């Protein structure tokens, strides 16, 4: 066990946990931020995607001890009112089915657009390919990313 000072969604947080604990479980179990999802635990599905200093990472493979003072953003902190351009585009295209993977999809997409405001189809596919949606909403995700890019 060790104490870690974290910055999550702009707030200082302190946790006392096993240093090897993946950020995913720190967020979900210790900080009560359950928007970030578990899907595989081995960086294969993207359900656990969060931003670390603005970059999309798989929180299931990121031990809390490696986070240091980097800023963590989760789906809960992406926007105040659920009105980030990516979220708005998700609404417009009515993307979700079961919805379970969508937090991860939105976090990957928003990081993509932050670094590449006008991605091509191939770039969108390459960036989003690590996020599995078993319900199969990929086409709407792709369309929504383009809309978000156009509206940002």
């Amino acid at each position, binding site marked *: *066990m060790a104490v870690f000072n974290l910055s999550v969604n702009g707030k200082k947080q302190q946790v006392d*946990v*096993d240093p*090897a*604990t*993946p950020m995913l*479980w720190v967020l979900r*179990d*210790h900080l*009560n*931020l*359950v*928007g*970030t*999802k*578990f*899907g*595989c*635990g*081995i960086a*294969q*599905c993207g*359900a656990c995607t969060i931003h670390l200093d603005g970059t999309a990472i798989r929180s299931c493979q990121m031990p809390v001890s490696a986070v240091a003072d980097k800023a963590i953003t*989760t*789906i*809960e902190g*992406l*926007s105040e009112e*659920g009105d980030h351009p990516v*979220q708005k585009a*998700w*609404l417009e295209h*009515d*993307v*979700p*089915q*079961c*919805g*379970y*993977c*969508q*937090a991860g999809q939105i976090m990957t997409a928003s990081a993509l657009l932050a670094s590449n405001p006008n991605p091509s189809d191939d770039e*969108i*596919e*390459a960036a*989003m*390919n*690590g*996020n*599995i*949606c*078993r*319900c*199969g*909403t*990929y*086409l*709407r*995700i*792709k369309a929504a990313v383009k809309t978000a890019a156009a509206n940002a």
Partner: protein
Amino acid sequence: MKPLHNPPEPSILKKVDRRSFLKISGLSATGIIIGMQIGCSPSKKKDSGIPFSPNVYLTVNSDGTVTIVAHRSEMGTGIRTGLPLIVADELEADWSKVKVVQAIGDEARYGNQNTDGSFSVRMFFEPMRKAGATARMMLEQAAANEWGVPVGECKAKNSEVAHEGSGKKLGFGELTEAASKLEMPAEDKITLKKKSEWKFIGKSTPIVDIEDIISGKGGFGLDKKVAGMKYATVLRCPVAGGKVKTFNADKAMQVAGVQKVFEMPFTAFPGGINAPLGGLLVVADNTWAAIKGRDALEVEWDFGPNAKYSTADYFEDMLGKVKNKGQVHREEGSVETSFKNAAKTIDSTYLIPHLSHAPMEPPCAVAHFKDGKCEVWAPTQNPQGANDALAEALKIDKANVTVNVTLLGGGFGRKSKPDFIVEAALASQMSGFPVKIIWTREDDIQHDFFHACSVQRIKVALDNNKKVTGWEHHSVFPPIGGTFSPDATGPSFDELQLGMVDMPFDIPNISCQSHEAKAMTRIGWLRSVSNIQHAFAIGSMVDEIAVARQMDPVENLLDLIGSDREIPFDKLMEGFGNYGEPVEKFPMKTARLKNVVKLAAEKSGWGKELPKGHGMGICAHRSFLTYVACVVHVAVDDAGKLTIPEVHFAVDCGIVVNQNSVKNQFEGGGTFASSLALKGGIAFKDGQTVAKNFDQFEVARMQDTAKEIFVHLVESDEKPTGVGEPPVPPFAPALANAVFAATGKRSKELPIKMS
């Protein structure tokens, strides 16, 4: 997903008083309460004097809100949106004021409300409309009484009733008290809206949970927390039917945060769908400790009766069996004679692997057992089934079990089995804490109720005029029944009705046969069930017939379906189930099947000039009473890499309730099917799955899926039928046929390998 064999009873509507409503639903209500008795179980014998026991309620409340209290689970099919839409339309309610309230699963009287078999909309459509119309008429009558005018002058609109002449208006909320005292109109006096007056049915409306979902608000099973809750994992024997021989938990107990380790009760194979597999339970302060603690367990297994299960050997065995004569389930004419007189025969064998459901949210549940009572929160497709299973496992009365249904992060059939919920309850009972059970992805893939692996063989006879004269289909796979009983030794007739014996072609000599195969792992229902293997074999064979006849595949398909007619499957076979509906009510109409074939062909530009390496394939398949044709367009480059530029689904599912949900289901279903067509299957070696996570059990990702999926809905006045499962069956055969068109190579095995 299993077909139902008790056709749903006609709906019965009745007014319900507040006291009985409270007792049954646990909810208090003011205003109009209409109970609906929908579905199959409670009133088998109409005249048996069984009291009216509604299982779904419509309430119009004094604050103007409208609630549907029902037992349907949401797992991505949009049913929590579809049902309110139907009610809002007939009731003339403001859409934003209608909500579905998930009732708790605590009473036997709810009957079987398992959310599967793609039948929610089909069963609920009529009753929901009638209930909505009934409440609307009562509200209009109440307003007429209030104003002392004829009811014909009062019209409900957007949650208000207005008087035509005077322009007077009263909100629904103001009218419910008076309306609730009125008699309900008799069922034959209920006036439903005309199709042209529908406001929501047939249009597109976003799902009701969308804003919560995109802002990351909890609500799934895995998100549930209760005070004092511990987290648990279970180390299960990797072979179904295996058990703990010896174990040592010393190292596990040293992991920080691990509280307790228990041995779970063991159930011998086959143990059904209720009982967990047994194994070792690790209860800890958080998920990570539960996972690390489990990793530290030392265990020696007795692998049990399935220790040698190898799918390689099992396929060999099935391949041998389909060469022989099997048990005959449908027979017309004489296939023997047709083959004796054939000018040409085609004989093909198809292999389809086990599949895993792998919903993105793995199985999980929270349970709190205290003072002989148990409350659980779980992403379940079947709360009643869970209720029964929990009462049995905990040895308590059903009335002491409460099942709360969370949102489901996908289901596909996996979450109709309550085994994981029972695990959570046992864990809580043993440890004394409220417990959340977490299945890792490795748990999910290794211990699934798998889609059956299968061998299909079809032999076809053609005469001198290239007319198809004989059709002999052999189907073999381990049955779902094998999960319940050692006596289930081959495909059941139920499973063969999913796409095999209901083959629609006009061929004079037909024989459909099955062969024995015993389940050596847990087999379960997966999105469209045995339609998957049957449609793959039949859809591929149809294309082979087109090649043999040197005909265009669409022409050939239409010709095989033949003249416009209703096929009397119930007369051709004893005990034909027709997905739980009487054949007269939902007949197999060949005209509807041909119509979707033509529509898909037309919309996809079938027959147009394609670039080199491109090809199109078609398959048509009716399942769950919905008619679907699918055209897949593929492009294969010189290196053998396959992409799918376009997919066209033509769909006749009767009246469309929510276009948006139907389209979503088909886009998603096409993608789900591309997983099984192109990506991963589940192989077993030494009784264990070879794949354990998404690195080995691959599923379709964005780059694998079609670039565009078009869904063309047939404008129809037929009764609505389901759309959750029907997209899946025709996709893989259409894709295989497209690959053949593009490359000249035919893949008779799923997943299709391109090298």
